[in-house]
């Protein structure tokens, strides 16, 4: 009996134990961290701690551990992967580039930190994500105007950058601030730069280099113009795939470490704390879908004044359309508030494109008149905003023309025609009446011939 009860309770609990990745819970909690050496566990502990305090189970392994694997029996063991192993040439276990790409293709998240002398393996993964690291493996991003002032490092490779993407959803609404000053604390970066492939519209530069930066080997003389210069260099990029998997690519592993205190060149303010911790915490919240993950539910449309959804609309009908949109906050779905959600009434091209009104509680609605073109239409909501997962809803609905009896019947302009017809008919009746009843030869013959014609 006790066995039965325990089995029963297990089956009851099981769904809750497996509350990992699903459309209803976009934040998975199992994270595999692959390191080059385990000392990173201590030196990057602030980053790991911030993840752990947010409820993630970090499974920290060496990248060449022969026992690691992303899936077992066709089931993924992890919801996210962090690659802090820039120099690894071959992963242990069953992990390779294809396995990692499949992992991302299944909608799971990935964080890659590269560094100087990054291995071809890491570069290959980055290229698959639409990011090209500088080909020169010894190259570092150098910036002689916005570097972090230090009495011990004079190479200007430790960059203090504050050229962040302007997006509250990716970086959080709180400004990256130093604790004491109101000014933005710069983010420290030391590593390789990369460019994003222009044809790839899914990659975003989150942290860019300043216009005076360039990527070169600081120890060698510059013989050719550097291939990467200026703000085309991206220091940290993110990718949001079409399946909403999110990837973070950073050219520096040390930016995740517990480093603090920074003074930017040319500025007298010395910051007690660099922006790295907040920058990475907020960015990891975005990567792990704790922000910017939307879902749309209860899409409804009906004629004005009715409640039921019709199977077909007639041209020129007035209709109402509504949808509810929620954002995942890491633990629950919160109403999403925006004023730029748009609906399209679409057949080959949009006939109507209208911004939805909102009640600020996640409910979006509008009403419009069906165009006077019939055919098979779609209600389309294509919501693509910087940093948010894309919403793509479409619902097919046919539109028919007027039926024969739905046209206007009493048109004043046509009254004279009606009048003429009826007047003619009256005359006709009266004349036939008269013809039949009247005496006289000639008229009878003529009118009878006429009557035969009429019949």
């Amino acid at each position, binding site marked *: 009996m006790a066995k039965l009860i325990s089995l029963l309770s297990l089956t009851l609990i099981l769904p809750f134990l497996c509350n990992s990745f699903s459309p209803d819970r976009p934040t998975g909690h199992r994270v595999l961290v692959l390191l080059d050496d385990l000392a990173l566990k201590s*030196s990057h502990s602030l980053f790991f701690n911030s993840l752990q305090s947010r409820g993630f189970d970090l499974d920290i392994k060496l990248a060449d551990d022969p026992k690691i694997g992303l899936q077992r029996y066709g089931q993924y063991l992890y919801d996210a992967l962090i690659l802090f192993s820039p120099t690894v040439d071959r992963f242990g276990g069953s992990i390779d580039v294809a396995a990692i790409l499949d992992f991302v293709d299944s909608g799971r998240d990935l964080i890659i930190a590269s560094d100087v002398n990054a291995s071809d393996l890491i570069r290959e993964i980055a290229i698959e994500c639409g990011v090209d690291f500088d080909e020169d493996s010894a190259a570092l991003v150098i910036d002689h105007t916005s570097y972090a002032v230090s009495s011990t490092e004079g190479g200007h490779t430790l960059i203090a950058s504050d050229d962040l993407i302007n997006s509250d959803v990716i970086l959080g609404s709180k400004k990256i601030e130093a604790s004491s000053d109101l000014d933005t604390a710069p983010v420290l970066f030391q590593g390789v730069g990369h460019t994003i492939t222009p044809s790839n519209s899914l990659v975003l530069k989150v942290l860019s280099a300043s216009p*005076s930066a360039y990527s070169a080997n600081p120890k060698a003389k510059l013989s050719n113009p550097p291939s990467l210069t200026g703000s085309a260099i991206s220091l940290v990029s993110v990718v949001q795939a079409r399946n909403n998997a999110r990837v973070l690519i950073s050219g520096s592993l040390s930016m995740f470490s517990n480093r603090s205190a920074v003074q930017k060149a040319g500025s007298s303010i010395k910051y007690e704390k660099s922006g790295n911790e907040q920058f990475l915490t907020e960015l990891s919240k975005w990567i792990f879908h704790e922000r910017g993950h939307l879902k749309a539910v209860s899409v409804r449309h009906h004629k004005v004044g009715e409640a039921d959804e019709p199977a077909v609309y007639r041209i020129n009908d007035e209709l109402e359309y509504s949808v509810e949109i929620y954002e995942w906050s890491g633990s629950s779905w919160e109403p999403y508030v925006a004023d730029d959600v748009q609906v399209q009434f679409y057949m080959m091209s949009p006939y109507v494109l209208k911004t939805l009104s909102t009640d600020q509680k996640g409910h979006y609605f509008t009403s419009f008149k069906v165009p006077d073109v019939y055919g098979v239409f779609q209600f389309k909501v294509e919501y693509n905003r910087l940093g948010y997962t894309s919403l793509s809803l479409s619902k097919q609905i046919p539109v028919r023309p007027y039926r024969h009896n739905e046209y206007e019947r009493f048109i004043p302009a046509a009254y004279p025609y009606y009048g003429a017809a009826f007047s003619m008919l009256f005359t006709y009746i009266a004349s036939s009446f008269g013809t039949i009843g009247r005496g006289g030869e000639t008229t009878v013959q003529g009118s009878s011939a006429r009557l035969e014609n009429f019949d």
Partner: protein
Amino acid sequence: MVLLSVIVICEAASVFQPITDAHRSAALELFKPSDGSFGSLEEAYEALRSFEILGIDKKPDISTATCHSVLETLGSSSSSLKDLFHALRVNGILKCKVKEEVFEGIVPRLKAVISSASSLLEFYYSIGSLELIKGQSSNVIVLLSDADGIFRSIKALSQSDGRWRYSSNNPESSTYAAGLALKTLAGVVSLASSEIDQSMIGTLKNDITKLFDSVEKYDDGAFYFDEKVVEAHEHHGPLATTSSVVRGLTAFADVTSENIKLPGDKILGLAEFFLSIGIPGDTKDFFNQIDSVSVPLILSLPATVLSLSKKDQLKVKVNTVLGSNAPPLTVKLVRASSSGSKDGLLIESQELKFDKEISSHFLELPKNVDVGKYTFVFEVVLHDSEHEKVYATGGQTRVPVFVTGIIKVDNAEIVVLDSDLGSVESQKKLDLAGENVVSLSANHLQKLRLSFQLATPLGHVFKPHQLLEKLVWLQAFLKLSHDSKDFLGLVEKFYYLSGSYDIQLTVGDAVMENSFLKAIGQIELDLPEAPEKAPRPPLQPVDPYSRYGPKAEISHIFRAPDKRPPKELSLAFLGLTFVPLVGFFIGLLRLGVNFKNFPSSAVPATFAILFHLGIAAVLLLYALFWLKLDLFTTLKALGVLGAFLLFVGHRVLSHLASTSSKLKSA
């Protein structure tokens, strides 16, 4: 008396920072007691020990609650060895009032454990506890009579490569265990009632040397120990492992009278390893780091970026790892040479002056030092010969030093030259310190020359690392050379795109304090038409902000309704259509309508009436068709009515025809 003794030999390029105030505040943040005590005595010890080493006075007051649990643990006869050990360790710091009888009660128990112990951890905890009791109570006799035997039984667990096993039936060897074993053995030596066999200590030293053969190294010169076998049931990271070895080693070095010969750079590398971690975010890591660096190591920290414009002095701060001042010593600059050239020997054997106020050694840079990268070699010499025994000099410290300064930019001008003749087409002076807006125009047969002079503060010609002129239209770059540029060779780089290009000049170097990025102006380029095979310009990245925002609204334009006349006009014409009808009736009346010919007999009269009614019904049907009915209903009804009318009409007419033929014949 031997101490681990190191002075920095900075082969590595990077200089590690000692423990600072950041560590102290981090410690207070990390070790936060909940409800006046820590979760376990082990945590309490780690917190208290870290506070003690860092010298934090404002530690949270946990002594009452913690002492209470210490007394409870020590008093109870059922508490585990591990708990006893940690309780004693906490007691060592907090000095709770533990009665002598309590200690006397524990000692026999511990000794019993030692004599029957088989695993390393049992030895570690029990001997560690005895050692702690020895330190905390003077009256209790803790000395071990059979120290040699215990020493041998612990030594029996060691492996040939210097690592140890946790117990005799566990074949896995561990570096972490080696650290524990060394610490335990140190305890045995200190507790021994008689002198330990020196040969055994000798073999142990061999083991330590072997252990150091397995040390691992980073590129930057830091050394660390790591477990070979990763899947040990209780895995320790490199920090915990290295820390364990260092603790064991220092403890052992404390109790033996002989010097342990270890390569100095390895011990230094270990210290660097601990410091390179920065501030760990985990209490365990934090304790391990802090506890390990409490061994007396000295770091010298030269400032490696010197500014000529600020008249920076060469400063070397010498202190211990924990940030306190070092014993009196002299820092010597053995030599300083320029990194680029071999012959550039600048300074040789100079002694740095010591400034008590800022407690650092400094040297005025000689006048002939120009901006650039240099390698300075330092040596530290201790004043006190006693200290020299404690801190053996490790060698010379090589430090790369950047001497920065303001570079003068002069004689800047931009010229467009005619290619063949070299004649000047247009020439503009530039002021690179201020704002410039130059606008030039050129075609592909001409040359552009941008020239300026860079000079160091001492007047030498300066060649910066970054020297870029950028014509921005499609991100094409020109490397500035001494020659003037020929647009002919660049047309392909510009993808044959004529138009206005912005000129940007970037000059920067690590030693240049006034690195700059300047927009100089525009140049109007007139390039030839692209040949067919010319490469297409690459895709330009799209601005992410523009790709996303909302789209412009679209509203459908409905077909305009037909134009209609005003209602009044229609009604007037409606009236007009009835005028002929009225005229007709008047005409009928004038003609004198009669119904003489209307059939008088019953049957034809009925047909005639029905015929007229039928026509009236058709008229009514038409009226209804207009008002209400649709075509199909109307046609149906009309079909029925038509057939009826045909029938009755035919009867009426045939009657009329027969009457008229009768009349004729009559």
